[in-house]
């Protein structure tokens, strides 16, 4: 991209003056100049001279950071950036701190739809991202605070989006009553759509109900939040399994179809003895489903769980509640490679589940026509410096006795009920091709979301898929191109209230993460549905809420006001500010007051400062948002401004489309 004409005069090398174009891409600059020089074939010395010359030119400096793009400040709020649904975490934690639990719940519900459910079982991508985890060792207990809001909220009747009595005449079919379909219904019903959900089981909830044991997610919690959506007027067709998508489409009743049927097929382990042992070998997710629906209520004394993901954790803990005495989880690889979330591993190990590593299943051992155990190869791995496996060998073999074996080695999508000639393209893994942004398949009007779209992920992903699919469905039904969706927006509003007064709690609270109280080991196995986690007490919630760093209260800098007095730099407790002369990114990083720990985090670079032309550089990575830079700034060049992300949902699309409609006079 050439935006100006410059003349470069190389100091030596005998180069003459020539015209050159400025390329915004620094690596492209050199070549851009050579290409435009009209000389070609410059000698080595000339090239060297030229590159030296270029390095010192003003346009090779880092450009001032464009903070007007919503992504810039959004990214600073690490939890919100990491959350697929972009839940406004700092704001709901603030509401909890103020005791406004109902408001905190409703704010959550806007983006993640199932706060009480997710407050218990979310995979919490926000917590590993949390800045507190980089400042101290443990992140804020974001997920469990969400549960605090749900546990303590008041009545929300009348505070959910109203559903119009007059419908808009568009009918949507959702296949599967899981979190993705329910989110689609939640977003479209208030816009006047008629939504029909087909569910093969006799109760809604999908994998949330069938695969998450009741001791982690009690049924009343599930029923209540699903009920809120059903209560908006979903036509729920339970026990109706869709066996042919063609038949559904050909009814002509529906303007769009959303497939939210999950990834319902557990992976099989074909090993010798599998068929003979069939009665005592179970597929993890199907087995959990049978337990959830009351078809299975006991298991053998010795149980082996194959696989070490979150499903394996649910299987081993469920086994303990159905009468198993020794439960062993078998992992093929060392601990660093486990798929399960660290907290789920922790909870299982608390219940004395033994996790055996480096054992690769070899065969099911049959004795007298009955499963006697399994034979494993004991593996040895060689790791490189990055912890990757570079070599493996079988060191030994081992037999482990078992009465039952549960396979929890992954799950897959299966679409035997989608005819292949409907215009829905399938890829080489036999999975439909789905657009990652619009969630539409290659057949207009057929959308996918949740595990059905891109394979097994967590609930929170399925919820966001549902939100995005709802936008697409709305645009589809109104004949608007799916890709021209509303962009996200971001508002900034100053938190300055007066002298030394800021409208947020900016004290850094040096408290450690609160521990979740659990039901005692003696009590919890008495029944299958005793919820293990008790939830935070009021005191715990109040303390934990104070650990949030208010990353959404942004440090906003205006270069033209700065007098370079260094007050902000001197006071910053985590040394994240530097004033230095501008240079290349590498040069700027070399001059930081404290080394940047996270090289993936781009530096904030201001415009040139008025007095010296230097720049203000900020490494956002460790900023604790204490506001002292703004507090100490004599000219208010720094200000603390709360960012409010506007992440569009279907209702925003509807409003925008409504406004664009020509008004009939």
């Amino acid at each position, binding site marked *: 991209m050439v935006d100006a004409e410059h003349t470069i005069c190389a100091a030596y090398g005998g180069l003459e003056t020539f015209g050159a174009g400025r390329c915004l891409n620094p690596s492209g600059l050199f070549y851009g100049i050579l290409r435009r020089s009209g000389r070609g074939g410059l000698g080595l010395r000339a090239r060297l001279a030229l590159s030296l010359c270029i390095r010192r030119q003003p346009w090779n400096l880092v450009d001032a950071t464009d903070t007007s793009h919503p992504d810039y400040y959004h990214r600073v709020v690490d939890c919100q950036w990491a959350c697929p649904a972009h839940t406004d975490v700092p704001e709901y934690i603030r509401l909890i701190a103020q005791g406004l639990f109902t408001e905190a719940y409703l704010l959550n519900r806007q983006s993640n739809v199932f706060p009480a459910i997710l407050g218990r079982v979310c995979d919490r991508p926000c917590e590993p991202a949390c800045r507190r985890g980089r400042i101290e060792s443990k992140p804020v207990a974001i997920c469990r605070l969400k549960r605090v809001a749900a546990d303590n909220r008041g009545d929300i009747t009348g505070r959910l989006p109203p559903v119009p009595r007059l419908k808009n005449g568009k009918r949507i079919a959702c296949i599967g009553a899981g979190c993705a379909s329910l989110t689609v219904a939640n977003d479209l019903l208030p816009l006047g759509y008629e939504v029909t959900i087909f569910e093969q089981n006799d109760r809604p909830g999908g994998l949330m109900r069938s695969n998450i044991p009741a001791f982690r997610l009690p049924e009343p919690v599930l029923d209540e939040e699903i009920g809120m959506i059903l209560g908006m007027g979903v036509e729920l067709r339970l026990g109706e399994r869709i066996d042919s998508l063609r038949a559904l489409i050909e009814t002509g009743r529906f303007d769009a179809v959303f497939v939210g049927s999950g990834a319902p097929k557990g992976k099989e382990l074909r090993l010798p003895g599998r068929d003979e042992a069939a009665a005592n070998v179970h597929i993890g997710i199907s087995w959990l489903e049978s337990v959830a629906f009351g078809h299975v209520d006991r298991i053998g004394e010795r149980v082996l769980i194959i696989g070490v993901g979150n499903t394996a954790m649910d299987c081993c803990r469920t086994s303990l509640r159905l009468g198993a005495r020794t439960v062993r989880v078998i992992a093929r690889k060392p601990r660093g490679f486990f798929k399960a979330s660290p907290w789920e591993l922790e909870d299982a190990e608390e219940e004395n589940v033994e996790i055996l590593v480096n054992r690769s299943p070899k065969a099911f051992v049959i004795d007298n026509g009955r499963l006697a155990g399994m034979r494993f190869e004991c593996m040895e791995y060689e790791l490189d410096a990055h912890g990757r496996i570079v070599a493996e060998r079988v060191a030994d073999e081992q037999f482990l006795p078992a009465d039952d074996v549960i396979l929890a080695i992954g799950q897959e999508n299966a679409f035997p009920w989608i005819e292949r000639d409907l215009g829905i393209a399938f890829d080489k893994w036999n999975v439909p091709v789905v657009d990652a942004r619009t969630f539409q398949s290659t057949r207009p009007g057929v959308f996918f979301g949740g595990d059905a779209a891109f394979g097994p992920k967590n609930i929170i992903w399925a919820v966001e898929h549902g939100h995005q699919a709802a936008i697409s469905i709305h645009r589809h039904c109104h004949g608007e191109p799916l890709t021209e969706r509303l962009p996200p927006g971001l508002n900034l509003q100053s938190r300055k209230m007066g002298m030394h007064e800021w409208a947020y709690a900016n004290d850094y609270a040096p408290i450690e993460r609160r521990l979740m109280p659990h039901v005692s080991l003696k009590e919890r196995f008495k029944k299958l549905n005793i919820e293990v986690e008790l939830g935070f007490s009021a005191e715990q919630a109040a303390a934990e809420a104070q650990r949030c760093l208010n990353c959404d209260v942004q440090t906003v800098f205006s270069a033209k006001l700065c007098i370079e*007095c260094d*007050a902000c730099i001197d006071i910053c407790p985590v040394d994240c500010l530097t004033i230095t002369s501008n240079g290349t990114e590498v040069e700027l990083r070399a001059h930081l007051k404290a080394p940047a*720990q996270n090289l993936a985090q781009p530096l904030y670079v201001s415009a040139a400062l008025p007095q010296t032309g230097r720049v203000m550089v900020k490494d956002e990575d460790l900023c604790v948002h204490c506001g002292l830079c703004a507090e100490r700034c004599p000219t208010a060049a720094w200000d603390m401004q709360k960012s409010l992300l506007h992440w569009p949902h279907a209702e925003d699309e509807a409003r925008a489309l409504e406004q664009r409609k020509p008004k009939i006079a």
Partner: protein
Amino acid sequence: MTFIAKPKVTHPSLPPNALGLTRRAYEGALSTLCAGCGHDSITAAIVEACWRLSLEPQNLVKLSGIGCSSKTTAYFVSGAHGFNAVHGRMPSIATGANAANRRLSYIGVSGDGDTLSIGLGQFCHAIRRNLDMLYIIENNGVYGLTKGQFSASADIGSRAKKGETNRQPPIDPVLLALDLGAPFVARSFSGDKRQLVPLIEAGLKHRGFALIDILSPCVTFNDHEGSTKSYAYTREHYEPAVLADFVPREQPISIDYPPGEAREVALHDGSRIVLRKIGADYDPTDRTAAHAAVQARGGSGEYLTGLIYLEAADRHAEFHQVNATPEAPLNSLPFEQLSPGSTALRTILARYR
């Protein structure tokens, strides 16, 4: 000022010094000065210098008089000893403390009022005695604490915030110190830590009187147009004479200096100052030339900064040599030695009969 204390949280990779302390261990109480005050920047530079020198906090003595500047000793190295003297009388206290214990490092922080008006006499005599201390003047040309009257360092023609023009000539502490024979004279700017921090390190390690006159804009009463000590004016009229790098004893010189452009001066404890020339030929070991250079620049409204004059270590006798003070601190001497008794007194008196 602010009421919000700096939280104790730190950058996880803050490096420790030889004592295992991070920079944060050298901080002090919450500053109550105006936001953006140059003095706070100097405080930060002192913190940085003390950390870099791995000074043991209990071996530092902070002395001050009265004024905004003199409050700042509370804001750094809270583990150090401190004495807040009567207005302009900090050198007397420093003299007494120095005589009582020569093993400690002494840092005096004063302002242009405390030093050049009420304390001018004390200041001159501290130089004359060649007290072993670092004397910092936080010079902003204005009486900030009493709401912005001209101080004795205000330049002729400089305008006050309310508009009146100063018509009295300034006292330049650098010229005064050069005249009075100070062995270490420097001038710097609160907004230039790259220059200031090594100067403070060198000043603390220098044996004898070290003066650093630091231009430190008063953001509330003297940072307007027409002021000659504002941030903007200082930056425009700021001319570093030499670059001084402080090299501790243990550390070999790692920076590569072009030949002929750098010269090393050893301090008493074996650490060194490397002086690097920049621009015009300037010799910081020639007192007469230094005097002339400061005067010439001053006449044209420029501030010559950097290590302006440094005397070779063997050319001056400092306070302890002249007064034959004991090597050991007085509080460690036995009572009999401190108070030799009436017989000894009679012997001494007999000498005067």
